[in-house]
């Protein structure tokens, strides 16, 4: 079982790399969905012995949310906004990969500094941190509002990989509340993207930089 779990971890990391180089928006949405599903499977494998019924139900819920609902919401938002098909990175793909690899290295170093007690799965911390940083990479180096939501979801996935693998015992209410938040967040962001596409001609966030304090050219004289 643990070997399988570790395989999944490797898979997650590979998905991170794939996200870093994918140019098509719809592939990106799909990759994030796949990552969410994989993250949802993880708790089933992480526990010792047969998973609890509650855990199973919870995992199913997560898979449903991340694998079905979110992709649907995002696709809809993308279609409504009439965005172009590619993600329009602000840096080149090789650079993205290099940054991604750098994030992995940093994550594994951090993981070595943070040994988890009672770990049953190796590489949990590095994989989780790497995914979080990949999410940040998507947010910071892609120009569209929708890719930023995707990045947010990747961050969320990274956190889940860590959280769900470890804390199957948490009170249900808390987890539900957390999930609800994420759901609403995505929902609200979807609405915001809709408004953005209506107010501005497209959802390129370059348009969204009117609010600034930069006093260009007013200094050094």
């Amino acid at each position, binding site marked *: 079982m643990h070997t399988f779990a570790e395989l999944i971890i490797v898979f997650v990391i590979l998905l991170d790399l794939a996200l870093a180089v994918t140019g098509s928006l719809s592939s990106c949405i799909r990759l994030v969905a796949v990552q969410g599903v994989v993250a949802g499977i993880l708790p089933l494998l992480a526990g010792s012995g047969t998973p609890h019924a509650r855990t199973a139900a919870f995992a199913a819920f997560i898979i449903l949310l991340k694998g079905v609902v979110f992709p649907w919401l995002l696709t809809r938002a993308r279609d409504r906004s009439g965005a172009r098909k590619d993600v329009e990175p*602000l840096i080149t793909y090789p650079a993205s990969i290099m940054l991604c690899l750098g994030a992995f290295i*940093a994550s594994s*170093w*951090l993981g070595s*500094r*943070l040994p988890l007690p009672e770990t049953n799965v190796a590489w949990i911390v590095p994989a989780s941190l790497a995914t979080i*940083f990949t999410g*940040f990479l998507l*947010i*910071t*180096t*892609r*120009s569209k509002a929708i890719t*930023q939501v995707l990045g947010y979801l990747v961050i969320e996935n990274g956190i889940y990989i860590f959280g769900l693998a470890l804390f199957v015992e948490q009170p249900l209410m808390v987890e539900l509340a957390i999930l609800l938040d994420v759901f609403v967040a995505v929902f609200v962001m979807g609405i915001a993207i809709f408004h953005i596409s209506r107010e501005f001609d497209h959802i390129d*966030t*370059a348009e*969204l*930089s*009117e*609010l*600034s*304090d*930069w*006093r*260009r050219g*007013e*200094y*050094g*004289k």
Partner: protein
Amino acid sequence: MLLVLLSIILLLASSALALFFSREPSRAQDAGAYGAVAASALGLWAAVRTLAAGSAETLSLPWSVPLGSLSFCLDPLSALFLVPVFLLTGLAAVYGVGYLRSYAGSKPLGLAWAAFNTLTAAMVLVFTAANAVLFLLGWELMAAASFLLVLFEHDKAQSRKAGFIYLAAGGAGALLLMAAFALLGAGSPLLDFASFRTPSGTAASAIFLLALGGFGLKAGFIPLHVWLPEAHPAAPSHVSAVMSGVMIKTGIYGLIRVLVFLGPWQEWWGWTLLAAGCVSCVLGALFALAQHELKRVLAYSSIENIGIILAAVGLGMVGAAHNADRLAALAFAGALLHVFNHSLFKGLLFMGAGAVLHGAGTAELDALGGLAKKMPRTALLFIAGAASACALPPFNGFAGEFLVYLGAFKGISSYPAVALAGVLAGLSLAVAGALAAAAFARAAGAAFLGEPRTERAAAAHPPDGLMLFSMYALGALCLAVCAAAPLLLVPLVSAVGAGFGGGFGAAAALEVPGPLVYISAGALLLAAVAAIAAVKRRSMFPAARTADVPTWDCGYAAPTARMQYGASSFAQPLTDFFQPVLRKLGQYPVIAEYFPGKASFSTEAQAVVYNAVYAPAAARIRDLAYRFSWLQHGRLQIYIMYIVVTLLGLLLWKL
């Protein structure tokens, strides 16, 4: 003690009442002025009693704010500062009623009176507080109230600039004081003055510097004076009188108080004060000479006088460091006496300037002239005040400076270091005195003497009775203090003892009586001789034949008022000589033709230190801030990058 607290309450209550009547100017005036006068009478009685008794009264009540307690202390030092506060604010209130009358309807007089009385209450609080939080409360209240008064005519850009500089200086000063008090009270749960323990050497020096900066910003010695020449002219004249006469003395008071907390003084503190004082008194007088506006002249003269006081304190401290206690006692007594005297004559002068402003509508020296004929009594009083400011006997300004000089001469025949301090102090006083005489002769001459230079000056009207009453009272006090100097012995000695330490008080009791007696003897002799000369002139020699003719003027046929020596031309030989320091800006006509047409000429005294130091520094800081403004460029991606990079950095650094 209770009387003083009562006067604070009375002042605050009358402030509220004045504010309440803000729609009815005359009632607001009454509420403010009666409150101020009554509170002054109460407080004056209490302060004089304390001075006579020479002992301290304290009162301490718990207070629920952190570090605070409602501790008050009325000792001779406080009382010596309080006497001029009450005297001057009471008289200024009387004057203010007359002065503000013409503003009724156009300016919020209720607010002005509320601010004035709050300012007074805050000053009383500052002089009696014995807890740092309470002290700072009074301190900042004072700043806020006077700030509002500086902005009385806020439709003038000049006033707004003054208000800004004043507020910024006050804010910076208060922060330094907070730090100084925090260090002083490092070990005690409450910041009561009584609980301050003597700090160690380095800490003491740090506190000294902080206090010097904090209190110096209020006292206004050079180079911390920049707010003063802006704010004093902007405020209504009775307020300028109070600000210049007593408010800036809170800085001196605070400095003296903190010096006592600091325990054994280090010699370089004394030298620092001495240097600051010498520079301030000489440059203050020099700048005063170059100003074109009457109230600005007076403001710079205040800087000069603060310099004299500071130099005296510094001289005393250097002397004390060499165990020259008698010298120190003389210098300290001189400093305190000058504090008192300056408040009287500077109050008088500002009221005189206010009468000019009130009567002629302007205080620009080159637009005045000949006012002595329109307002002879104001001219008399102003000239008396000017003579006092130049420390000319028989006026009171001489008394304090004389003690300082005497201290300086005691030092000159002592150890070389003390001798050097004495020479520096004395020389600065002498130079400043000569410059001040030039500045005041110029100011009085340009404003009151000769022929009016403009229509406005020609149409000036005299001040009303209330204004004159206050000025007469101050003028009489100026004379009386010098003539009755020995009466000041007990207050001075006990204040020196309370303010600087009992040893100096004892030394002062030995050293001060003689000079005070001689000052008064000299003044009386002078007055008697002058009286005889005047009487003889009148009784023995032919009476005057007043001809209705213009001044002979060496036979020049058609003199005009513009041909008189004006303020600029009077000062020109000196200001030209000191141009490297003054850096006055001028436009001079170039005469190229044989029959030149109309030409104009102008000079402008610039605020040298402000323009050379503070304004460029502010521009630098603003430029720096603009450079960093790039950080908030509006790009979301980079904003999030800040978060990631910081997080990553923290993780790598801290784990």
